[in-house]
């Protein structure tokens, strides 16, 4: 919950445009869900797909037996496994981009081939990597005819050197040893490529309000690449802002000190106080957490890995109804002047309602499939994303008009001078 949209959303409520909110990255290698109480789905580093092979059993019977704990991944013979990324994308195999890998895992699980009790998991298997590394290690050590167990031992050492931390983390969370049993993974929400709209100077449409790093939309387009969020924070902070903010500040040099008793400050304080009081005064019967979970479920089901117009329309209505229910029936314990984490959370969730609705509105506007945004209506016969560069080569920058009014869309056309806009094939 401490990772939230509050600062950006409050700016957006005061007129800063929110850009590309529907572009959400779903990361393929997360530890699958184990129950309703779960607070997060831990992400395992992407690097695992360098050596791990992603698969599910070919038959639903095998998958069922695994789900029921009657078999493990190791019991499934090679010929009964479907290495679906390698099969569908022979050129890139397990290294296809995140959105493609995620959707493929969803397709496999939707077909009843999932391998966790919830039905929502695929295998990420290191057995081949362990044996391959073991063999080359044995070779480089000059061992002749090492047995399988020696090769495995050496291979596990190499894998431990490369991924030891991640394997340890996996074992801590799941209690399973990934050196012996294939890991189970499932996609989970990871990153929002969208954010506050900024110009090349990283200034929003509100003069003097600069947005740098992850909170702006500027670098990632429809699908972020690995490690580039950190890169963006560094690049914006070290290399861009120092050159651009000075321009703004130079014009402000004679601006006198603000008076904290100015009307703007007093009004804002009053607004804030009223908003907080409104929440604790509802005194309803449902916890903040329960609303957060229900909202999350709506977003995941209708605005997640794949979306369609009907679902999105339905989701928008559901969000509006849930938000009304929230202000009618939420229970926030404690007072507004206490250290009150529940009150804090209530405000974050209130922001999520508004942002969530905007994500849906944006997804509905974008009648194409593009990066992390996959609209079921727009796919090729083989189920791949179909972009529409003719009509949708623009950044959607949304202007907030009030919580019960439709936001207004501003389009920033994407103009390419040195490169040609193309769709990449991973086949």
């Amino acid at each position, binding site marked *: 919950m401490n990772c939230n949209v509050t600062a950006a959303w409050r700016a957006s409520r005061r007129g800063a445009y929110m850009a590309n909110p529907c572009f959400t990255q779903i990361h393929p290698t997360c530890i699958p869900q184990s129950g309703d109480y779960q607070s997060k789905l831990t992400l395992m580093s992407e690097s695992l797909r360098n050596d791990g092979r992603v698969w599910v059993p070919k038959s639903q019977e095998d998958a069922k037996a695994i789900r029921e704990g009657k078999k493990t991944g190791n019991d499934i013979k090679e010929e009964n496994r479907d290495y679906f990324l390698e099969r569908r994308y022979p050129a890139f195999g397990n290294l296809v981009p995140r959105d493609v890998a995620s959707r493929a895992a969803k397709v496999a699980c939707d077909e009843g081939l999932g391998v966790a009790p919830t039905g929502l998991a695929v295998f990420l298997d290191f057995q081949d990597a362990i044996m391959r590394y073991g063999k080359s290690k044995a070779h480089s050590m000059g061992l002749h005819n090492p047995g399988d167990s020696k090769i495995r031992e050496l291979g596990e050492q190499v894998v431990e050197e490369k991924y030891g931390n991640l394997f340890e983390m996996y074992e801590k969370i799941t*209690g399973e040893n990934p050196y012996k049993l294939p890991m189970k993974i499932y996609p989970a929400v990871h990153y929002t490529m969208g954010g506050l709209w900024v110009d090349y100077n990283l200034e929003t449409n509100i003069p003097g309000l600069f947005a740098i790093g992850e909170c702006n939309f500027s670098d990632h387009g429809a699908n972020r690449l690995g490690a580039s969020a950190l890169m963006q924070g560094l690049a914006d902070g*070290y290399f861009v802002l120092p050159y651009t903010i000075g321009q703004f500040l130079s014009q402000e040099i004679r601006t006198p000190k603000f008076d904290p008793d100015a009307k703007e400050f007093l009004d804002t304080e009053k607004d804030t106080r009223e908003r907080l009081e409104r929440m604790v005064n509802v005194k309803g019967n449902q916890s903040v957490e329960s609303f957060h979970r229900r909202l999350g479920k709506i977003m995941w089901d209708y605005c997640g890995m794949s979306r369609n117009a009907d679902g999105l329309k339905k989701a928008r209505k559901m969000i509006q109804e849930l938000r009304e229910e929230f202000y009618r029936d939420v*229970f926030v314990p404690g007072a507004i002047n206490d250290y009150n984490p529940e009150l804090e959370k209530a405000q974050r969730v209130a922001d999520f309602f508004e942002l969530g609705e905007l994500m849906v509105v944006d997804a509905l506007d974008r009648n194409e499939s593009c990066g992390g945004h996959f609209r079921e209506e727009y796919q090729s016969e083989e189920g791949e994303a179909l972009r529409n560069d003719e009509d949708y080569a623009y950044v959607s920058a949304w202007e907030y008009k009030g919580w019960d009014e439709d936001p207004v869309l501003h389009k920033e056309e994407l103009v390419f001078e040195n490169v040609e806009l193309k769709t990449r094939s991973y086949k």
Partner: protein
Amino acid sequence: MKLTLKIWRQKGPKEKGRFETYKVEANPHMSFLEMLDVLNEELIAKKEEPVTFEHDCREGICGTCSLVINGQPHGPNKGTATCQLHMRHYKDGDIIVIEPYRAAAFPVLKDLAVDRSAFDRIIQAGGYVSVNTGAAQDGNAIPIEKEQAARSFDAAACIGCGACVAACPNASAMLFVSAKVSHLALLPQGKVEARRRALAMVKQMDAEGFGMCSNVTACEVECPKEISVTNIARLNREYLSSAVASETKV
């Protein structure tokens, strides 16, 4: 599994606290904090005040979670933060005592949450390096030996959680400060402020009311990031050399 929790409840910094007993039904896949979430949801359903505890990343990288569990900061497992502790390490019928960190420099804010801003002020006193913004530096211009980089990295793994303070009978913050000093002292980037860093940080540490180090080394045992006490030796060296070399009075 059914568990009995004895949790420290305290309304505010100036109020008197006491243990309250709760029953909770947990399952082995839950993390410790998720078990507390479940308890809180039950309390909220009864219109009672939930237990305040701190958390953020829930994967052992931010240092926000804390708690002293059955007398041990971050619970029983080695190299594990509270948020990474799972209930499969407990069994049906267990009684678990959960307290906040106890240290004068970390006053209790509410229930299990303590104020660790003393650490922030120590960092502000010297836990930074100056860098030029503008153009990217040529990486090859600052060669660092691999071993040296690894030592610095190990020290940099400190997440600033404060368990070392909670573990120490003197409530000393030496392990934390030494990790922060070492991380920077071992790299060329840290040389600019080297002459004042250790002095300034130790001065702030003392001002915050942390105790002295008497080489108990309980800190190293409880540290979720397994920061080594050899960093404390390095801090002492840095302190000495900055005391000798310092030009500015700190």
